[in-house]
């Protein structure tokens, strides 16, 4: 029976677990053979990935003329997917870095998987600008290195170059942050591994970790520093992505609210994806006591907040289009809402602003089936947001004679499907081979709000989180 020690703090992890039990719970999913359900999901995702690989190979061979782009609409599906995937990644860093700095203890049971999601989503995102280059084998030309072409340098005033720096830095730091968090868990797995091969693999990957408090002390210092770096980094990444648009003179793109608007949207969509994944994972991997209803409810609140910011941004854009008395700006927004792509605009508004308002109801926030459906609705809405911003701003430009429509080709759709294939394949492999829950971090919050065989009399000026509220 779990006894609440504090009236103010509710335990983060349900079930009265012992430390060793957490190790067992998490390690057991890695030690048993994969279930039929896992094989089914893996086969499905891997097939999508194969379709994607085929589509990408074809368009690299033939060229991006295989896309539905034309002279007027020069960016469409590909860049939509890029922005969509980068946005997904943001939730992972918010959970791992920002919530860490704000001492949100509940983050510990979801941060490992959310960070893995970030790393995978950024890989998915990176593929799109790469193939958009047309000649992706020359992608390294974007890096400023001394070369025999002049040396001809890159243009440091171009947001597209900033984007290259932002995405690659974000990917590197996220990967390192994730791996650093993984080392103590890999050591735990090493010390309980039975087979020789596993022992060797975990020995190589766990860096000889032995739980020394002197090492933990430095480790925690570095963890805080990385969190402090990752926090402005995650805000900078989507701000810079938004500058790809905002620094241009296209009506509908040329807006100063883009950076905060994009960042809020990114967190909004990222949390929706985290919810989609967690709701499945907690059930399939049997982690209901770790990823609790409270976790789901808290994430819903983050979605409600960021969704509110996104809604405000939509309204602000509309207002500014009217208030600026800029003819082209006004037209761009009237065209968005009432033009030939109005359907995509209204999908965006309903999925991102109207339907999520249901999350104000506590009952719905705590209904797993509802939240799952909601998370998918938001994912769809946020994909359409990027489509609306990109395509509707471009397809009717300043000169009516060059107005055009855009329709994705099968190749483009197959590429999008392929990116989902890559995302889920990689995530399923992660869930299979890497501890899904940060064992070490969850153990650290186990005593939170809970009284366990302790004698409060001895704990004087203790640093632990316990407060003797109970008389």
């Amino acid at each position, binding site marked *: 029976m779990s006894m609440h020690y504090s009236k103010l703090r509710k335990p983060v992890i349900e079930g009265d677990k012992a430390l060793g039990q957490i190790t067992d719970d998490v390690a057991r999913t890695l030690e048993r053979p994969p279930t039929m359900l896992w094989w089914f999901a893996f086969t499905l995702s891997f097939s999508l990935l194969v379709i994607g690989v085929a589509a990408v190979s074809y368009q690299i061979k033939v060229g991006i003329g295989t896309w539905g782009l034309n002279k007027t609409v020069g960016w469409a599906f590909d860049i939509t997917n890029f922005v969509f995937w980068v946005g997904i990644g943001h939730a992972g860093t918010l959970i791992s870095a920002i919530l860490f700095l704000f001492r949100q203890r509940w983050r510990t049971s979801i941060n490992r998987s959310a960070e893995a999601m970030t790393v995978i989503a950024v890989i998915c995102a990176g593929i799109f600008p790469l193939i958009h280059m047309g000649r992706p084998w020359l992608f390294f030309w974007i890096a400023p290195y001394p070369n025999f072409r002049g040396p001809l340098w890159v243009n440091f005033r171009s947001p597209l170059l900033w984007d290259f720096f932002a995405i690659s830095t974000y990917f590197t730091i996220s990967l390192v942050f994730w791996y650093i968090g993984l080392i103590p868990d890999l050591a735990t797995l090493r010390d309980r591994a039975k087979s020789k091969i596993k022992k060797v693999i975990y020995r190589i990957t766990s860096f000889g970790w032995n739980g020394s*408090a002197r090492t933990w002390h430095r480790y925690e210092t570095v963890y805080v520093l990385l969190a402090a770096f990752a926090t402005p980094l995650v805000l900078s990444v989507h701000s810079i992505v938004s500058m790809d648009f905002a620094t241009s003179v296209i009506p509908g793109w040329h807006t100063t609210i883009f950076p905060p608007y994009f960042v809020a949207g990114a967190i909004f969509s990222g949390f929706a994806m985290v919810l989609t994944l967690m709701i499945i994972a907690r059930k399939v991997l049997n982690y209901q006591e770790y990823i609790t209803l409270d976790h789901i409810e808290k994430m819903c609140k983050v979605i409600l907040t960021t969704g509110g910011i996104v809604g405000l941004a939509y309204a602000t854009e509309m207002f500014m289009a009217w208030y600026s008395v800029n003819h082209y700006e006004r037209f761009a927004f009237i065209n968005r809402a009432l033009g030939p792509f109005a359907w995509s605009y209204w999908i965006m508004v309903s999925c991102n602003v109207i339907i999520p308002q249901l999350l104000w109801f506590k009952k719905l926030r705590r209904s797993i089936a509802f939240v799952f459906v909601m998370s998918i609705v938001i994912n769809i809405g946020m994909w359409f947001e990027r489509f609306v911003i990109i395509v509707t701003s471009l397809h009717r430009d300043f000169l009516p004679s060059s107005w055009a429509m855009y329709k994705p080709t099968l190749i483009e759709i197959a590429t999008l499907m392929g990116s989902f294939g890559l995302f889920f394949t990689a995530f399923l492999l992660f869930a299979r081979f890497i501890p899904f829950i940060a064992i070490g971090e969850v153990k650290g919050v186990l005593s939170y709000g809970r009284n366990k065989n302790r004698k409060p009399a001895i704990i004087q000026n203790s640093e632990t989180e316990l407060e003797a509220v109970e008389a």
Partner: protein
Amino acid sequence: MDAQLFLGVFSNEDDILNATRATNAAGYKIHDVYTPYAVHGLENAMGLKPSRLTWACLAFAATGLMLAVFVQFWIGSIDWPLNVGGKPFNSLPAYLPVIFELTVLIGGLGVVFSMFVKTKLYPGKTEWVPYPGVTNDRFVIALEQRDASFDSGAVQRLWQQFNMLEAKRLAEVTL
């Protein structure tokens, strides 16, 4: 150098914290404490000084910042001045995003690298685990026992107040 380690094994966070604090206060030289997770307050209980890795981080971050400033100004204004929209060649605002990214990248990677150097961790290192279960659910204090004046009985009596599970001597450990 070779020394003997005297280990006390505990089963939870509060016991190890209190035992460490008492051991340190009694003047014993704590070699190290081994815990399955980062126990907050343990560094104070052991009397560890704040890590200087923050300074390493600052140095790396400053290097990244200066590198980005230098590279961009040198390329943009000296080596190959490029007229972009009639803007000045040395326009700092346009350089800020890359300056920020390189500061974070080099500061972050540098401090992680410094940590691995300082804690002597590297891929494939054969682990030295003082007591089985220390990466699972056991908390261990290790004292250095260098001469005959070390009274293991007194230490055990001290630790027993904090629900010690077991005391153990590890002979001839190369520290």
